[in-house]
């Protein structure tokens, strides 16, 4: 888990975060990632599905179910237990990093 977390990039982190609350389909994931990142990250389908393939290959994400809406296929994905563990490790690490940065910033001497 530690090794996987170390290589986790921001889009991957937000995709897994979006899936943490429950299964989601591709379009929904793109919307949620944009919302979670404050609009900074706007995933495109090629990037999203490439990331989902990789995460599925690593066993962090799995296909859930499919449905047809307006004649279009929607496939749902969910976070697996190892995926949730990897995300939790990543979140703890990011929090620790942020705490360390803020603590150092408080020691910063501002020129008079």
């Amino acid at each position, binding site marked *: *888990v*530690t090794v*996987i977390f170390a290589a986790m990039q921001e889009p991957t982190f937000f995709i897994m975060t979006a899936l943490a609350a429950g299964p989601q*389909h*591709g*379009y929904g994931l*793109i919307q949620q990632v944009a919302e979670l990142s404050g609009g900074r990250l706007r995933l*495109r*389908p*090629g*990037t*999203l*599905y*490439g990331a989902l*393939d990789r995460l*599925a*290959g*690593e*066993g*962090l994400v*799995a*296909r859930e179910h499919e449905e047809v*809406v*307006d*004649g*279009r*296929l*929607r*496939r749902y994905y969910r976070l*697996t*237990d*190892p995926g949730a*563990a*990897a995300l939790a490790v990543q979140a703890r690490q990011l929090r620790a990093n942020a705490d360390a940065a803020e603590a150092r910033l408080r020691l910063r001497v501002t020129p008079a």
Partner: protein
Amino acid sequence: MSGGQHPELERRYRRLLRAYPAGYRADRAEEILGTMLALARPGQRWPRPAEAADMLAGGLGCRARAPLSNTIRSGLSVAGPLALALAGALATVWLVFFEALPGRSFSFVDEYGLRTVPSPHTAGWPLYLPWIAALAALLLGLGRLTRALTGLAVLGQLVALILAAGTAWPLPPVYVHAVLLLLGLLALSSPAGALHLSAGAREALLLVPVLLLGQLPLRVGYPTGGEAFRYDGPWRADLMEVHLTVAVTLILALCALALARASTRWATAVPLLAGPPALLVCATGQRGTVTQVAAVAGWLVGLAALGWLTNRYTWQPQRAPGPPLPD
């Protein structure tokens, strides 16, 4: 935005999706298309440049990593028999030129004084026999026997490589063993059944020994001034010619085999096969075991990297939650 509202856009998106491999498209195209259409702006008729770039990058990335294991496997099914054919033909050439043709030690005087050139023959001739037998079995369509003989030849060559590098035994130089060993390993790593060739493939493969051995009469009559061909002798340039013939023959046979199988797998087989012949040319062009060992190591590292990438990026269409990850 729902599908069906953008018939032109949908058609153009589908065209972009062709960047992905066919197998991937069969499984995912409708899903990705649905997402793309859902993200499209009202009235949009053309994919935006960023969308096109994203699809092309995604498709190329998928092609680069997804079917690599299958590609390598199918490439090995072509490279394996060709490697063995090449090894058998080389073994025959080396056996005839350096071990069987009359050769004797002789002395001569030049500006450095009296010098003696030892007999060119080594104790390496038995090593070539399993290769020739394996080639014969391959051409006769005896798959299991071919693999068994290749295994025997590889084993012998491995021992010879160690002996040639570490002892003063009168054996052929290191590059001979290294090249045969690499070709043998390539043949053995081909998928099960790959060494049991169809009649058409065997005919195509006959090109290798026929073209190589076809030059033997010319070589036998070559004006060597009484001196025999030798591994490290003054006939190096001549040897180089032989090796270049090997390379050309290999390419011809590769094309012929690919045509015989109506397949494009040869494209993958080329890089797999390029290592040993490159080593051969390198070894005969430059003296020094370090160069040869470095070339072998480089080739092996390259193949290992390829194998790692294959396992790392194999795309799996359906994967249940994976095994627990180690902490």
